[in-house]
């Protein structure tokens, strides 16, 4: 069996209470050693007890302790949760006291890993818990909670059920060719059924964009010639929103200069140093670098100077943005307009002296990414990259099946593509349904000799 582990399981920082979770075979006995109050070794499961944590005869904190006995717990092991009075110092002290009893400090995600290994949760839920732990915005938390709840798994299972019914029907046609009890699936009636599955998968993918947006935020690149006001724009955006300045590398190779939250979605400004340096460096390197930055950005803000004519360099940048989502921010609109830009869509004006430009810019972003709608959606969407990739592969299998229908490949061969789709969706939840197909086959169709 696993050893006993503990960790602070509430978010670090200021909060009314902090919870220290202890899980493992010795969870109850170890905490009982340092708890003054009822003898925890003798209390019933799923009960809460008031008392004090004692370290070398001194009271460390006044606490409430929940005792949860296996297997009906998050990890399916014995769990004790110590609710302390918040405050970094006292929480740390309680944790140290627990560690002194010989309990090991948990590694990040270890509780969830145990929940998965002990068979308590499936893979999508395990992933979601990871997301929940690392979530920083409210939307991220809400999304993760829905996944923990299994709402996303249920959606995937629904599609899987449609597929399994179709498969069972095809199998019946094969194994009982002379029985007419089941509808015979042919190349003519198969496409609508496949299209139904395809539509379901596509809508899962479409919705997943929201999930990705919430979990990964919007990567924004601010570009423009030197001295058009990129830095001041960035600073204005960051300052006003108590920017979380971070030096952590993002999920991709971009360096994030700072983040702000907009309607619950994180805007991550990626370092555009490469572009800023284009003029100093050999032309070729500069262009390559700027191209890769542009490629990685979900949104580009092109900054132009209202007081200057459009330069060849500006035109070059605009040309590069042809296929990107971008907003043109025309700076220095307090100065006379000399800019000859014949562009109307997604253009925002501003200057450094008033906040109006920043406001319009933010409204533009909200509009472009439909952030209001995300805030009001029920957020039962797929957000893990692993799951999204598997859904994409599933969709590919179904598309293959459809393509093979048009090539007049026999239905029992196309069944291979369909089975692949079913297997891929099964991989998402990590469940095995070896006999599910046969069960469906026998429960739906009347067969026999």
């Amino acid at each position, binding site marked *: 069996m696993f050893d006993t582990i503990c960790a602070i399981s509430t978010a670090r920082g200021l909060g009314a209470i902090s919870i220290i979770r202890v899980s493992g075979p010795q969870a109850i006995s170890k905490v009982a050693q340092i708890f003054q109050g009822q003898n925890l070794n003798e209390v019933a499961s799923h009960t809460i007890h008031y008392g004090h944590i004692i370290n070398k005869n001194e009271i460390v904190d006044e606490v409430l302790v929940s005792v949860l006995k296996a297997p009906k717990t998050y990890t399916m092991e014995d769990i004790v949760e110590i609710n302390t009075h918040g405050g970094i110092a006292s929480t740390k002290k309680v944790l140290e006291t627990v560690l002194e009893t010989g309990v090991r400090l948990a590694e990040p995600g270890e509780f969830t890993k145990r929940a*998965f290994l002990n068979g308590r949760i499936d893979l999508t839920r395990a992933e979601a818990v990871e997301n929940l732990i690392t979530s920083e915005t409210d939307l991220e938390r809400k999304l993760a909670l829905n996944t923990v709840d299994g709402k996303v798994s249920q959606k995937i299972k629904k599609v899987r059920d449609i597929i399994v019914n179709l498969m069972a029907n095809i199998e019946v046609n094969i194994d009982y060719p002379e029985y007419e009890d089941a509808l015979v699936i042919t190349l003519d009636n198969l496409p609508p059924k496949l299209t139904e599955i395809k539509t379901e998968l596509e809508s899962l993918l479409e919705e997943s964009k929201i999930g990705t947006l919430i979990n990964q935020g919007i990567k924004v690149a601010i570009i423009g010639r030197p001295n058009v006001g990129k830095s001041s724009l960035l600073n204005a955006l960051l300052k006003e929103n108590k920017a979380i300045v971070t030096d952590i590398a993002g999920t991709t190779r971009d360096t994030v200069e700072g983040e702000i939250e907009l309607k619950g979605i994180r805007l991550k400004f990626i370092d555009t140093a490469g572009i800023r340096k284009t003029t100093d460096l050999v032309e070729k390197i500069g262009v390559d670098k700027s191209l890769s930055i542009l490629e990685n950005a979900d949104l580009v803000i092109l900054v132009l100077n209202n007081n200057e004519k459009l330069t060849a360099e500006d035109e070059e940048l605009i040309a590069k943005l042809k296929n990107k989502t971008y907003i043109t921010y025309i700076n220095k609109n307090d100065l006379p307009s000399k800019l000859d830009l014949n562009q109307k869509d997604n253009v925002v004006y501003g200057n450094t002296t008033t906040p109006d430009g920043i406001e319009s810019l933010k409204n533009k972003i909200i509009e472009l990414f439909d952030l209001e709608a995300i805030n009001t959606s029920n957020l039962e969407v797929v957000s893990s990259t692993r799951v999204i990739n598997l859904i994409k592969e599933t969709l590919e299998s179904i598309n293959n099946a459809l393509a093979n229908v048009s090539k007049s490949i026999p239905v029992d061969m196309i069944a291979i593509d369909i089975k692949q789709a079913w297997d891929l969706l099964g991989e998402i939840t990590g*469940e095995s349904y070896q006999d599910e197909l046969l069960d469906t086959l026998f429960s739906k169709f009347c067969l026999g000799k």
Partner: protein
Amino acid sequence: MYDVIVVGGGHAGCEASHIAAVLGCKTLLVTANINNIADMPCNPSIGGTAKGIIVREIDALGGLMGIIADKSHFQIKMLNNGKGPAVRSLRAQADKITYPKNMLKALQNTKNLTIIEGMVEDLIVENNQVKGVVLANGEKISGLAVILTTGTYLKGNILIGSENNPGGPHGEARSNHLSDNLKKLGLTIQRLKTGTPPRIKKDSIDFSKMQEETGDQKYYTFSFDTEPLYQINDQQKCFLIYTTKKTHEIIKANLSKSAMYGGYVTGVGPRYCPSIEDKIVRFADKERHQLFLEPESLYYDEWYLQGFSTSMPKDVQEQMVHSLPGLENALITKYAYAIEYDAIDPLQMKPSLENKIIENLFTAGQINGTSGYEEAAGQGLIAGINAHHKLKNMDPLILKRNEAYIGVLIDDLVTKGTAEPYRMLTSRAEFRLLLRHDNADLRLRKIGYDHGTIDETRYQKLITKIKAINTIKDILKNTNLSLNPSTKELFKNHNLEVPNSSVSLYLLLKRPEITMDFLQELIPLDYPAAILEEVEIEVKYEGYIAKAYKEVEKMLKLEEKLIPEDIDYNAILNLASEAKQKLAKIRPQSLGQAARISGVNPSDLSILSVYLKKKYHK
């Protein structure tokens, strides 16, 4: 003193005793009644979907069923002919007199094989190793290995309504004590049930109200070594009818009188072979059910009413049959009955079909929880081979799931067990595209040759076939279609689109509308039809076949991760208790097999695999 003693002369026992003798074992076949060797107590047919492929596999491995069926049928059909090649399968209406006769003759002509009559009631077991059998009359016969192929005769009970008569099919004597004695030796016994429909006297049937079902207008054989022995036009007809509203009313009104619904049966019946009362209860919205009338033999005049299996009392059966179109005045010669019998829990077998508890004891067929002549014969063949191998200290023949339906069958049995009589279905095979009826010899003849069941002559035939296949593929790859007026004309005559560029014939054959028959008009290919068909399938479905092989590789990777035989699952503390129990009982040989056990979750597998790595550095 025998090397191998086979108990029971059904389809499993015939194959087991024959192959053990062929391999050189001094073999004894003990059967209750020599006239019932290879008896067909249920449907008068050999083959069917998936089952027909098993027959071909048996043939490819040196078994008898295909050869005997080819000699003994009066109608043959390729099922699923309109579908893809992977699901095609032969079914023959076998003559219930001729088939057993031909099988008996074949066995009597087998060197090293002795057949005696007797009822085995006990085993001689010393130190958990079988040493022989004890007959009902007390006679003891010693043998180094014993193969039990007892069918439905272990404590068989025939049920018709509330009537309950101890006995096997045809009211034959049953074995009263063998299953109890097996239980004493530590085997788990389960009770299973199956059933058979009524038989009708031919001249009481009005065929004019029925739809004819004829055999195919093309010659087929099960065996890779026989030429067709029948005339297409001499094939017998079967007939199709439907149940009526009245039939359903009679059944509903008398439901409580049936052995099944009246609670007289304790055995578990199969879902795929439900009785007619089952069908009407479970699928209440169906207005009618299909039934087939099939002749049992050319030598007597009983017809088999397929689809009408029931355990109703005789008077209700009379009413039911008379409610069917064309059977208003039918004379029932044998009433339908349900039969309950003892079987062992197949989880107690190794994949070699040797028992885990008693060494040198093998089991095959219905005793292992299967249903069907073909499933029984396939296991019998493997049990016979492995009994020989065990005595000779050779590694057992274990067919993989990607090699044969027989492999799927045995792996399912020893890995998942079965709560109902197990019938093979194509959907049980994840690699059915590889397990085709046409390539059974390509899959298995070499294996048979390596294991001593296929002789040099037959092996050379295989080599010749493989060479021919490769030669034809080369010809097709190296021949480009010449787009001259005459070939263009040919395409048009066949209503085919004329290709706009000259492609190789190989690529041309990949197009769905292009057949091998058509290619032969473009280029002379003087090869047997079976070989041309093989090439056509391999070329046309190359992409799908390659995909299947990729999946096989994935599976084999897990199969290669072997679990040591002495592993102590209790030492793996984090395993869920259900998984622990199942793993300890089944003792899978590989991580792949463990993955197929129901109740063993992916998380259990990850724990097991981590444990194996840590403990055994695997």
